[in-house]
Structure formats: C-alpha cells, structure tokens
C-alpha cells in the first residue's frame, strides 16, 4: 500500500492519498491544532445515474428517478438497529446527502473518531432493505419532496435546467417525484446498491485531529478487497441547443427570483477544471459590484445584494448561472448580453482580472482553514478526477485571454435560459 503525499506548492498544505488494497481511494489530512474530525464516505452515484450496467450485465438498466437518494435514506437502517442509535453512543453527529453525481455518508466529532470510522465503514456496506422498511420510508421522502417543492430557490433552479436540457437527467429533482419513488422496491435498491457501492467506485475522505496511520489501520481491519465490477454509466444523447429560452412560474413568494443560465460544453478532469477557473472568473467579473454594469443595476434598483454568479457542473453537464431577487430579470439578461459582447470585443482590464483572481485565491486559502471544508474539498476533487490542490494551480495559470476566449465560446445568447419565479397576484 503506497502512501502518496500530495502537497500544494503554493500554500504548503498537504494530505495523504492511498489506493487501498480493497479498491477504495482514501484521502487523509491531519490538521494540527483542530479538535474536530470530519469524515465522508462517498460513492460516485448520484441522481443523474439512472442508466447503467456492469461487466456481468448484457443490457443497460434504467431505474426510477430519485432512487440514489432513497437508497441513502435506507442505508441508515441496519438489520439489527438504526445507525443513529450507534452514533448516539459515541456522541458523533452523523448525516448523509445525495447530489447529482455522488452520495456521501458523513460524521463529525471531536472524540472517539476511531469508533465512529468503524461504524461508518461498516454500516454503508451492510444494506438491509425489505418491502416493509421501504414502504415506511416512502412517507418520509414524500414529505421531503413536498418540502423542496415549496422552496422557490429549488424550483427556479430546476425550471432553468428543464429549459436547458432536453434529456439529461440533471433536470430531474435529486429526490425524484412522489410518483417516481412509488416504483422503488427492495429488489431495485439492492440492484443499485450492488452496482454502485463497490469500493472501487468509492472514496473515503477524513480530515482534522486524526492520525493517518490509525485511519489506515482501521481501514485495513474493516475493508477486504472488492472485485471491480466494470461499472458503466450512460447518459441520453444531449443536443447542444436549449429547450426554451424563458420559463415563468407564479408561486406564493414575497420576492420574485430568477436564475439565468448558460448551457456550456461539458468536459472532464483537468480540462474541466480549466473551464471551471475561466467560467468562475467570468461569472465573478459579470456579477462584480465594483464594475459599471452591476453598479448601474444596483443604482437603478434592478438588482440587490443577492445578485451573484456561480458555476454548476457534473457528468455531461456544465452551466454558468446568475441568480438573485429581481422584478425585472429581463433587464439583467440584456445587460449581461451587452456586457459579455463588450468584454469579448474590448477585453478585460488587467487590473480587474488580477483583482478577481486574487479574490478567488483568497477563497481557496480560506477553504483550507476549516476541517469540514478540507474533507469536502478532497472528496470533491477525487469525484471530479483531479488532485486536491489542482484548483489553486489552475487558477494561477489562468490568463485574461483564457477568460475572454471562454466567454466568446460558451456564453452564447442562444444557449441562455432565464427562469423566473414571480409573486402571485
């Protein structure tokens, strides 16, 4: 077992990566002076993975939307007791979450991390699904779905995705729908579990007040080698164009909100990281209150301080999103169109570019200041198929020409979707 020490040349921070004999990738960051420990045990299995096969299967299997999230709920129930009961005895706070491209089980503690880690490695690998306990969970998840359906931020985001993607499952709610989850049963859950919860498809990330040797000793004792199942996931063909440029919905909200997204080319690994750096810098420039466009929109009371930009990406999808509260999002769309055209033709002032870059660098350093952020950063980098500190290096190499080039190629008017949630009359 080789311990690879990964160090950031820029900050001097380091962590350990081990490809464990079981097939599991393990990332460990010992953080001196901190009391907390944060651990995540994740699988590359999210809501978008609705079609898949292993080497043993002839054909691809299609499963109901929301099943990855349903499975996450059900893993908290062992045959003999609930997982919460086990953690209640150690004092750790445990949780789990499902995103578009991963499912993670976590604990946070400041004592007994060895015992907590053993529980984590154990319960995630001990599924216990019955028709009875699946039925019981149905009501709970239905309420979770209804709760998120009342969240206008969630609605405006998914409406934007449905205006952007013709067939990619990213446009479907992570938890599925009340109808789609009604097709889930114990057999289907086992099918998904046995496909995706293969240690070769999983990662453990742990940071804080820990000993790397102790963590590896626990992994050695808990994990045995797992045969690689040859997992393949596929996505439906997705055209480059969008479905429709504008979607409006009325909701019981006090303030109207919008999401304006650009459908961009999706890449993988380091190439995607370069796109993330360019797209993030472009979105930061375009939502920067220090620059004339936002200054004018603020003064004219078209936007408020909630206006901002972000990059959203995963397997076969990549978007640059601007969002906030506004009664006049069409004016923001026009302003963005004009500003992008201006920047592409006139270029970015070097002073502004360097300032935004410094700001992004500062945010990345701050991330290394926090146990939870470090554990998440190591796991996310692995899922994205890059190194934990690659983002800082890619940012350092970024030029203003890269950003202009990105805007010219990707921030196209015909790939823009505006989603609006308006106040009911």
């Amino acid at each position, binding site marked *: 077992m080789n311990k690879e020490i990964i160090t950031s040349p820029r900050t001097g921070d380091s962590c350990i990566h081990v490809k464990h004999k079981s097939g599991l990738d393990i990332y460990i960051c010992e953080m001196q002076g901190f009391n907390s420990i944060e651990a995540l045990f994740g699988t590359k299995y999210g809501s978008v993975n609705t079609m898949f096969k292993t080497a043993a299967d002839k054909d691809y299997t299609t499963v109901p939307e929301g099943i990855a999230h349903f499975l996450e709920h059900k893993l908290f129930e062992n045959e003999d007791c609930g997982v919460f009961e086990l953690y*209640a005895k150690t004092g750790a706070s445990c949780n789990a979450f499902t995103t578009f491209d991963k499912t993670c089980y976590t604990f946070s503690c400041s004592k007994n991390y060895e015992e907590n880690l053993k529980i984590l490695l154990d319960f995630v690998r001990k599924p216990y699904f019955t028709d009875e306990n699946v039925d019981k969970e149905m009501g709970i998840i239905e309420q979770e779905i209804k709760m998120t359906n009342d969240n206008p931020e969630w609605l405006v985001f998914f409406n934007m995705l449905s205006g952007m993607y013709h067939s990619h499952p990213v446009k479907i709610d992570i938890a599925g729908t009340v109808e789609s989850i009604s097709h889930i049963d114990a057999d289907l859950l086992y099918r998904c579990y046995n496909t995706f919860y293969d240690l070769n498809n999983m990662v453990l990330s742990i940071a804080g007040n820990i000993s790397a040797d102790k963590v590896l000793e626990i992994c050695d004792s808990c994990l045995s080698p797992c045969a690689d199942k040859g997992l393949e996931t596929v996505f439906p063909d997705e055209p480059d164009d969008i479905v429709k440029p504008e979607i409006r919905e009325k909701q019981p909200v006090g303030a109207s909100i919008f999401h304006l997204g650009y459908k961009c080319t999706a890449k993988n690994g380091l190439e995607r990281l370069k796109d993330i750096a360019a797209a993030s810098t472009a979105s930061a420039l375009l939502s920067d209150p220090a620059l004339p466009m936002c200054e004018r929109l603020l003064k004219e009371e078209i936007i408020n301080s909630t206006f901002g930009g972000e990059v959203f990406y995963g397997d076969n999808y990549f978007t640059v999103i601007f969002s906030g509260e506004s009664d006049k999002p069409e004016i923001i769309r026009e302003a963005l169109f004009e500003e992008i055209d201006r920047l592409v033709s006139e270029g970015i002032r070097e002073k502004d570019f360097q300032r935004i870059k*410094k700001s992004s660098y500062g945010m990345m350093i701050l991330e290394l200041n926090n146990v939870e952020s470090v554990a998440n950063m190591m796991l996310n980098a692995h899922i994205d198929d890059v190194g934990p500190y690659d983002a800082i290096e890619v940012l350092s190499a970024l030029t203003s020409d890269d950003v202009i080039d990105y805007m010219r190629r990707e921030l196209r008017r015909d790939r823009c979707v505006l989603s609006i949630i308006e106040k009911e009359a």
Partner: protein
Amino acid sequence: MIYKRFELGNEIEFTAIIDNKFKSSSLAVYFITELNEKTAAVNNLGISILTVSSSQYRTYASLCEKLSELYGAGLGSLARKKGDAQILGLRASWLDNKYALNGEDINGEMRRLLQSCIFEPNISGKEFDPDSFNIVKKDLIDRIDGELNQKRSYAISQAAKTAFKGEPAECTGYGSREAAAEATSGDALSAYHELMKTARIEVYYVSPNEDSSFAEMFAEGFKDIERAPRKASVRNHSPLKPESVTVSEEFDVNQCKMVLAFKTDSDDKYALKMLSIIYGEMPFSKLFLSVREKLSLCYYCTSTSISAKGTFFVDSGIERCNIDKARDEILAQLEEIKKGNITDEEIESSLMALDNAILQIGDTPSSYISWFFDCFSDGQYITPEEHFEKFKAVTKEKIIEAANSLKLDTVYLMLDKEVQEQ
C-alpha cells in the same frame, strides 16, 4: 490559544482571541440595544450602511473593489434579536499576511478600511450618502418581502410573533416593512449616532497573530464619543397566555407547517437544553423516532429551547390530514417525559452529543465569537469545559421538572389552500 478581554470605554469591551492555527483573521462588532418596532428597521439601516461605503471609499463599487484587492476580504452586516434585545453588527474576515502573493499588508489595510467604515462613515450634510442609503434600504425591504420565500423560517417567525405579542420580541431583529419604507437617510444617520452613544458594544477579534493595533484603533475611535449607555434586557420570560391561541394562514403550498410554542417559568437553561435534546433536537430524540421514523408523518420534527424568552418551539412539515395526528404525537411524547419516561441512554447520548459539540468550539473563528458572545449575553464567563460540567450536573428529575414546566401557548399553522377548498 490566548484570550484577552478588556474595557475600551463605558460599556464597550474588546475580546481578542489569538490562535495560530488559522490562516485568516476575523472581526465582529456587535451593538446591543433595545428591540423596538419603531427603531428596529432604522437601527438596522444605520449600521448596515457602514458596510456599503465610507469617507475613504465613497461608493459601494470602490469599497467592493478594495475588498477584492485584499484577496476577497469579507465585510457584512447583521441584524437579529436575542431575547428582547436587538443585536446589530458588522463582521469582517481577511487572509493572513503570510498568504499575500506580493507582500501586501492585508491586515493593516483592513484595519484602515474598517476604521473608516465604522468611525468615518460616508456622510453628506445631515444624512448618509443617499446612493449608499438606497442600496441598504432596498436590501432591507427585499429581505422583509422575501421572508415568505423560506416557508419553514417564515412559519417559525409567525409563531414567534403570536407567542410574543405585546413584547419587544414580537418584532423581528431587522424591523418591519412599514418602518423600513418610511426611514430616511437622515433617520439612519441619527440612529447610527444614537447607537454609537447608547448601545452596549462588544468587539471580537480572532487572529493567528498577536496584534494590539485593532484594539488601539477602536479605543481611538470611541475616545471622543460621549457615551450614555442604555441597558438592553436580553432575558425576559414571555408570559403564558390564559388560553392557548391557534393562528393559521393559507397559501398555495404543497406541505403544511405546524409550529407549537410552549412557555416555561423555569430558569434552568441547562435542564431545558437537555430536555430539548432528548425531546427533539437529534436523530435519537423522541420526536424523530416517533413522529418521523415510527409514524412516517414528516421529514423533520424538531424542538428548540429559547431560554432567554422561556419559550420552547416544536416545528414540523406535514400533510394537512395528518396535523391532528402529528400534534397528538408531539404532545404525547412530551407527556412521556413529564411522566419520567427517560432512559439513562437518552441522558448519556445527550451528554455525549453536547461534549462533542462543545469540544469543537474554537475550530472556526466564528465559533469562538459565538461562544464569547453567548458568555456575554448570559453574563457568565466560564470555559466550555465548565459549561459542559453544568450539563453533567443536570439530573433526570430536573429534566422531568423542566418538561412539566412547559405549557402550550401558541399553535401556528400554514395551510394548503387547495386541500382546504375540497
């Protein structure tokens, strides 16, 4: 960790926490004043405007430009309530100098920027700069209008409004829409001067390096301000209504919300917190195990103890047809505790969870600030370890006593419009 606390002026205290594990510094300035419907919004505007411009950076654009030059330093404001007091403040954080790529003095630049924002605001005659004022006024009105966007917090806020009717805590920490809409830039400037003169002021500085320059900057800034502090009372138990009140509102929502507010005459905040954990704060709590796991009625059903107001909230998101069933179960679980049905394991698990949480204090700058501000609010400067010892001293009998002190005061229901029409 090095901890220092000293007086900077009349009812102005400075707390410095030096911890070399951090890569950044943080500063929080809290103004504690009476919570009042008439002044809450304008007080909020008078402080939040300090984060939008200053005499050195006369526009929001120039201030934002400077902050991003300083490696994305953060500067923001806050307005909330604690008990019957309004807490207003500024928060800032910035990267330590050793991470500056070109040898910039980020710390020194932030000190000068904050000095300008707090003590040399952007004033034009007898009012704040109108452009800056318009930005914060719009933000505040939008925030108030946007309350309904977050259904769960809106429901809790509405329950608090009914539970605390006639008391200062009836209003929110950021003020009402009417007061915000009527406020002028001149009113905001008067509120700023009044707060600098009369509010209790707490300053917290967390840094990897010992540096007295921030304390000196504040001492210098307050030197010429004639202080006449007015005491703001944080802890005031809310009286129990003669009969419990139910209020409901209808919206076009998918899920109904129910909030129950109980009142207590108990001052034993440690027993009340232990009760809350056993009852409904954790995944091993009775409400989670019964209302969610056993009956599958909800995704969340949690309790919160607001000891400053002697109030206890339980909130859940449920189907309209299950409201009675959920309420009966929530009350039945409380009855169980009142009858003494608490296991040693439940007490032990609650203590373990508290121990883990308390040990994490100090792992982020904000956790230090919250801890020391809570010490100030409670008038009790103890260590986290001593705090935990107080929880350990809570007996099962004290928890039962705390449960028996809870009386239902208010029920708030957010109802599904469509279902009601059937």
